[in-house]
């Protein structure tokens, strides 16, 4: 186990503080990439609002399936997730949120998908886990929960209490089926 439930909560707490250090959230939106990044974004959104005394912060969930560069490299078509972006990001600052940053391709697709909602003033990237050394595109996060050095064959799994009963980050020796 790379991150246990206690540390998991502290990481979320720390990243929420980092965000409000740099943003007052009057012109900043939080956008999570479906499915896992959206879950992380939800958690951060709750914590940020607590820290800001209940201030309204806009939260979007972006599905990048149709924007992926490997969309037809798979034997089976990729199944899309629900896209929930009830606002435009024209002129806004955007915090793009994903769970694990690995090759950078999801984030690239996320940037592409985001631009369908306007031209943001700036975009910053927040990830729970940065698997550095495996990047295939020049993408770097501004906010990092934890950094993991792992082999390409290994798999970093983020567990959520809504699904498995605990919040944790686990290193598996191979990708689960």
């Amino acid at each position, binding site marked *: 186990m790379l991150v246990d439930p206690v540390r998991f909560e502290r990481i979320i707490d720390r990243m929420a503080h980092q965000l409000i250090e740099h943003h007052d959230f009057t012109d900043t939106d939080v956008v999570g990439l479906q499915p896992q990044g959206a879950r992380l974004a939800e958690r951060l959104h709750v914590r940020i609002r607590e820290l800001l005394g209940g201030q309204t912060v806009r939260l979007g969930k972006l*599905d990048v*399936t*149709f*924007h992926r560069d490997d*969309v*037809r*490299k*798979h*034997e*089976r*078509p*990729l*199944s*899309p*997730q*629900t*896209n929930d*972006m009830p606002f*435009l990001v024209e002129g806004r600052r955007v915090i793009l949120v994903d769970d694990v940053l690995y090759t950078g391709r999801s984030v690239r697709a996320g940037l*592409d*998908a985001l*631009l*369908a*909602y*306007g031209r943001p003033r700036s975009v910053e990237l927040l990830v729970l886990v940065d698997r550095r050394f495996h990047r295939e595109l020049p993408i770097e996060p501004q906010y990092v929960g934890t950094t993991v050095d792992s082999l390409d064959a290994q798999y970093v799994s983020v567990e959520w209490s809504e699904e498995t009963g605990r919040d944790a980050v686990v290193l598996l020796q191979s990708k689960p089926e």
Partner: protein
Amino acid sequence: MKTLSTAHLTGIAGLERSDVQLLLDTAAEFKEVLNRPIRKVPSLRDLTVANLFFENSTRTRLSFELAEKRLSADVVNFSASGSSVSKGETLVDTVNNILAMKVDMVVMRHPHPGAARFLAERIPNTPVINAGDGTHEHPTQALLDAYSLREKLGDLAGRKIAIVGDIRHSRVAISNILCLQLLGAQVRVCGPRTLVPRHIGTLGVEVSHDLDDTLKWSDAVNMLRIQLERQGGEGRVPYFPSLREYAREFGVDRERLERLDRVPWILHPGPINRGVEVTSEVADGPWSVILDQVENGVAVRMAVLYLLAPVRP
């Protein structure tokens, strides 16, 4: 991750229930794309789709072309008028010539029943999508009708759906019957005896010749177009005496709907003969799903193209 059980969409016949559900679920995501500020995604940007229309069509062709463009595919259009078809070229030759120009998918409408399947068997590596083949099938119309019904009624299992009008000449009717049955709906056909094929009951549908009773029975009715061009020409006996009589017996107007305790949803695949199948009041009224059908058509066709798109090597 799920996939379709077929490489071509030649008809609803041969599809599994899970295929239809996957298509409709995927269409829901594309409908969301169509409501974004930028209604376009890059999923098929390296593909070229040929729209081969050997028979006239406005809405289906426009709908397919929009679906292809919203997925960023390149599009080439072909229509039989003004082509080598009139010089006697065979279907397979025409298509092979088009494929030699590196086309990745084919959408075809053809006046002959079975043309789509014939083609799919001869070009197995290029997905073929049937946009209507004679009086046989029109699968994307059935899918968009099912999608529109699902939006209004939820799960279609056990729902009562009637198809009214010219069943005999309608590819929409056959595809609709098969599609709705796959989703568990009860289907009834209703029309004049001359326009309901005698053995249609073998498909497992109820048959009625009484519109008022059918409206009372239905959760939704799909009003098929009277195909004026197929009502018998010179020297043939027409299928019904006059349009006025047809409208009186099988056309839906406001008075008919007001007699009902519960008004069914009204669908029409278009183009509407206003005052024949439905009056303007009905077509433009709160019961009408007709414009939803057109909007949903693009999303459903995007789902078909997306799910059938060949894997990039």
